[in-house]
């Protein structure tokens, strides 16, 4: 073993996986996990923990893996996170735990994410009971939204003995974990459902098909249904469009629609009733993880997929691993390119996209170099389908139907950073509903903070 190098993880062959929806990364075997765990230096002052938004005791769980005490490892993680199999797969570890690992200075950091995933998968396969809860407190808390923020908040409060009910607008629980992130990155039945089952085993009740703001209002939940605290984790699901001509042509989709059809409604399977449209040549506009997911999904449905992004490769907001996987599978990257108009055939269908070449100027406020259109450089890409993946913003439904709930100019709910408390009494919020579109683990961190603050508040009463 070379201490400076990660134990490589097996993956499906790119040519094979580009045609199926099975998981790309196959994960570590027990042997591989033990060897990888033995690379950890077990630092006295572990920086990796500081890099983890939910502060998992990383060296401790890794030492357990090294000693083949997988159950103990699972129990260590369970203290901090109810979603290890999810986070091990979708966290951007390179900028979090692994980004801080001291081995990363001279060599490759410990594969903390893959080890967490291994432990999560192992405990599922071996039916480990992770449902220790404190005695019942007989206090009701409502959680709105069953995405990563809501699930974490609900799980933490249930462990403390609260009577928690999650209200979910869709027919399935999991939020972006079920409608957004594709099966080939995050298996739904195997991973997401079973981690949600674990949260239910803590005593959390889930009511699907309840749209807070329409089916029931926040004030009603407090006054008539007697919830003593409410956590809003409703996410940022409202898609953005560019506002260019031709965006309402047939064949132009928001990434959210395309991915919801495929992931949540399983439109890629012919035994499910929801249809999905797929072109021969598909342009995905944007450069984030959602754009990569959309392009790789389109490819799997048989299209030639292109990422159209206005900056250069260096500025792509997507994870390096996802860009790498997309390239391996044959996704094309049309960089420094920005659409200005979508062109129609005689039936109102997309037949092409007029783009303009961009060059990079000085860094803007985000620190990234600003793209500037090059005059006279317009050209046409022949595509028959366009997927807009320009980011999302919070849905205004809850703030607009709840009196006294303040939002900022980006329509995000305003909270106290430490406690996640909103301007309205008894109401807390966290995740994308507060920050705008961010990551799964940051949403979990907010859910955790809010659970702590709700607990402290209700203890005082």
């Amino acid at each position: 073993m070379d201490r400076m190098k990660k134990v490589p993880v097996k993956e499906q062959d790119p040519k094979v996986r580009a045609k199926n929806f099975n998981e790309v990364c196959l994960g570590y075997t027990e042997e591989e996990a033990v060897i990888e765990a033995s690379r950890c230096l077990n630092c006295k002052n572990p920086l990796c923990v500081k890099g983890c938004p939910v502060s998992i005791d990383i060296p401790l769980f890794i030492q357990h893996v090294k000693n083949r005490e997988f159950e103990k490892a699972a129990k260590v993680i369970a203290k901090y996170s109810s979603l290890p199999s999810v986070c091990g797969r979708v966290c951007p570890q390179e900028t979090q735990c692994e980004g801080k690992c001291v081995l990363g200075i001279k060599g490759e950091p410990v594969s903390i994410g893959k080890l967490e995933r291994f432990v999560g998968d192992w405990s599922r396969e071996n039916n480990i009971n992770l449902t220790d809860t404190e005695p019942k407190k007989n206090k009701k808390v409502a959680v709105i939204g069953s995405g990563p923020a809501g699930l974490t908040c609900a799980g933490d409060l249930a462990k403390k003995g609260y009577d928690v009910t999650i209200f979910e607008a869709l027919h399935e629980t999991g939020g972006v974990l079920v409608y957004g992130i594709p099966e080939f990155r995050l298996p739904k039945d195997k991973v997401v459902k079973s981690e949600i089952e674990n949260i239910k085993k803590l005593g959390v009740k889930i009511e699907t098909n309840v749209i807070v703001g329409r089916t029931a209002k926040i004030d009603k939940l407090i006054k008539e249904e007697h919830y003593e605290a409410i956590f809003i984790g409703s996410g940022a699901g409202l898609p953005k469009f560019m506002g260019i001509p031709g965006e309402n042509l047939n064949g132009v989709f928001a990434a959210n629609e395309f991915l919801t059809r495929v992931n949540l409604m399983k439109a890629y399977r012919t035994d499910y009733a929801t249809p999905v449209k797929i072109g021969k040549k598909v342009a995905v506009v944007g450069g984030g993880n959602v754009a990569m997911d959309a392009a790789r999904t389109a490819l799997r449905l048989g299209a030639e997929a292109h990422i159209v992004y206005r900056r250069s490769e260096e500025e792509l907001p997507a994870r390096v691993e996802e860009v790498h996987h997309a390239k391996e599978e044959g996704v094309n990257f049309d960089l420094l390119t920005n659409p200005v108009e979508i062109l129609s055939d005689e039936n109102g269908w997309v037949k092409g996209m007029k783009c303009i070449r961009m060059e990079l100027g000085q860094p803007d406020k985000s620190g990234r170099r600003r793209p500037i259109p090059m005059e006279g450089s317009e050209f046409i890409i022949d595509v028959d389908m366009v997927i807009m993946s320009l980011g999302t913003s919070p849905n205004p439904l809850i703030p607009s139907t709840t009196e006294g709930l303040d939002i900022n100019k980006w329509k995000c709910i305003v909270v106290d950073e430490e406690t996640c408390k909103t301007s309205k009494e008894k109401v807390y919020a966290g995740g994308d509903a507060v920050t705008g579109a961010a990551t799964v683990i940051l949403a979990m961190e907010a859910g955790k903070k809010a659970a702590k603050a709700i607990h402290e508040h209700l203890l005082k009463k």
Partner: protein
Amino acid sequence: MFKIIKKKVLVPNIYLMDVEAPRVASTAMPGQFVIVKTDEKGERVPLTICDYDRERGTVTIVFQAVGYSTIEMAKYEEGQYFQDFVGPLGKPSEFLNEDIQELKNKKVLFISGGVGAAPVYPQVKWFHDNGMKSDVIMGVRTKELLILEDEMRAVADNVYVTTDDGSYGTKGLVTEKFKELVENQGKKYDYVVAIGPIIMMKYAALTTKPYGIKTIVSMNPLMVDGTGMCGACRVTIGNETKFACVDGPEFDGHLVDFDEAMRRQAMYKTEEGREKLKMEEPNQDKHHHHHGGCGCCGGEE
């Protein structure tokens, strides 16, 4: 799970169901809709709310079995359960925000086309329940497709039925009846609500425009989630893109881009490679309807 309390065949292929959904029934208002999903593998089908009973906790839906999903729905019997039934979705009808005293001074006309009678009914009933009268023109292709006539007569001031083939009521289109009422019978209307197939709503809006009568239509685009997260249902209203599921479904008919809406509704009509749809949805080629079907569309091509 949501229990079907009552099922009634109104006319061949058009079904009425009362579904037990207490949360939806407790907050439903005229103009809003629900999304129904029969089972694990079903799709999410938007249907306008026809009626609701807050005490019994039931919501009434009326739908025409035209596509794969509505044909599946029609197979469900009393006592069986739909897996998912979510709502109320969309904004309640605009007049619910208006001052009732002011509304009482207005003459309101409802125009329904085909199954559009189902979403029109709760609105007419709302006027009736609040001590106001309104007129209704109910248009259908032929007599056998007329639904909710008695119910409508019980709550409306005047009900005028038109049939394309003259088999009942006046022969002709709803727009012709409208012109006749205004031009020949001296009727004055301040406000028109037209709900039915998109082509009917388009012509209804075109007909009322020269008279300067405010006209509201209820759009029925393709939908997936119905909560504003996907944009499948986007429509152009006065050069602005709106999501029908959250900003609507009701809009000012004089501002709607109907041609775009019709084009977008047909998006999945030519879908290839979906064996199931081709085999089990024999009507899809000749039907104007979006996949899955919303109760708004009538027996009209």
